[in-house]
């Protein structure tokens, strides 16, 4: 039933990410109207529970969503099957999770 679970997880994570991506892009357009510095960004994000939750959710969803797509690419284009491909994408997902959460920590930690 792995493939059915992956199907559900990929759709669910996409549903979570869609509004987050829109909010993220609108925020960039809004914030950049008059130019913004790294210091100004950090002054808003540091210590903000809201932004920590927003981007952590984003990172977790992406770390679930992307590896499932990559799993299909590896299986169909590189012929990887079974445990090999599952271990490869588990590693890829973990990598996305670690570097993503580290980045979130970097902008919200005080």
């Amino acid at each position, binding site marked *: *039933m*792995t*493939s*059915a*679970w*992956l*199907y*559900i997880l990929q*759709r669910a994570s996409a549903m979570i990410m869609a509004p987050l991506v829109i909010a993220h892009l609108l925020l960039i357009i809004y914030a950049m109207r008059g130019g913004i510095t790294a210091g100004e960004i950090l002054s808003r994000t540091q210590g903000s529970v809201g932004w920590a939750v927003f981007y952590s959710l984003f990172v977790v969803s992406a770390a679930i969503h992307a590896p499932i797509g990559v799993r*299909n690419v590896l*299986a*169909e*284009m590189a012929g990887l*099957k079974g445990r090999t491909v599952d271990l490869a994408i588990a590693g890829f997902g973990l990598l996305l999770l670690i570097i993503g959460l580290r980045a979130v920590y970097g902008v919200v930690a005080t």
Partner: protein
Amino acid sequence: MGENTAKTMKVKVWRGKDSGDWQHYEVPHRASQTILDVVTYIQRHLDDTLSYRFACRVGMCGSCAMTVNGKPRWTCRTHVSRVVEDGEVSIAPLRNMPVIKDLACDMTEFFAKWQRAEGKFNGTRTRHEKMNPVDPTSTARQAASAGIECINCAVCYSACDVVSWNSEYLGPAALNRAWTLLNDERDDSQTERLKAVATDAGCHSCHSQGSCAVHCPVGLNPSLSIAGLKRESAKALLQGKLK
């Protein structure tokens, strides 16, 4: 065939097995001529060693599908005038199946996948019981009816890129069949069927690219059937029915 034999066309036919070569023929172009007529003309008048498969000649049996000018088609119902390009036609065996010889493919695996997708009816009543009435207007019966007229020609299977990438993939025809049975209220093996199609070789591998629906000669939409299987197997999984 008509009497207009003055015009001819160039026909390129695949000869051999998976490795082989194109052979060129000059065939009279006639009115209302089908691709199957062309192949038959070549075999009867030009080269009797040419192998191909056909039976009914009227679009019912699904035996005569071939790749015509790069696209999978039922050759008995494909008019030359609709597919000829600059007076030329190329005729090759279907893709995604081993070639036995020339234009005939080995369809063993194609049909084995129907079995693997639980593509057989498992009724609950015997001949000693009353018939189980099915409401023709019910949503399930209408979904089944929409996909039921498959003639097993393997045009969709040949058109499917996922099959070409993953030889285990059950393919549009087998999954479409599973979908029609899933919507048959008289069938008693729905859980087994959903388990059979919810694997890496099953419905979730479909990219919804829709080549099957584009090329299906009888106008079915296997993509839609597969989407239904994805939905129903996901639902059953969340309800804990697919242990």
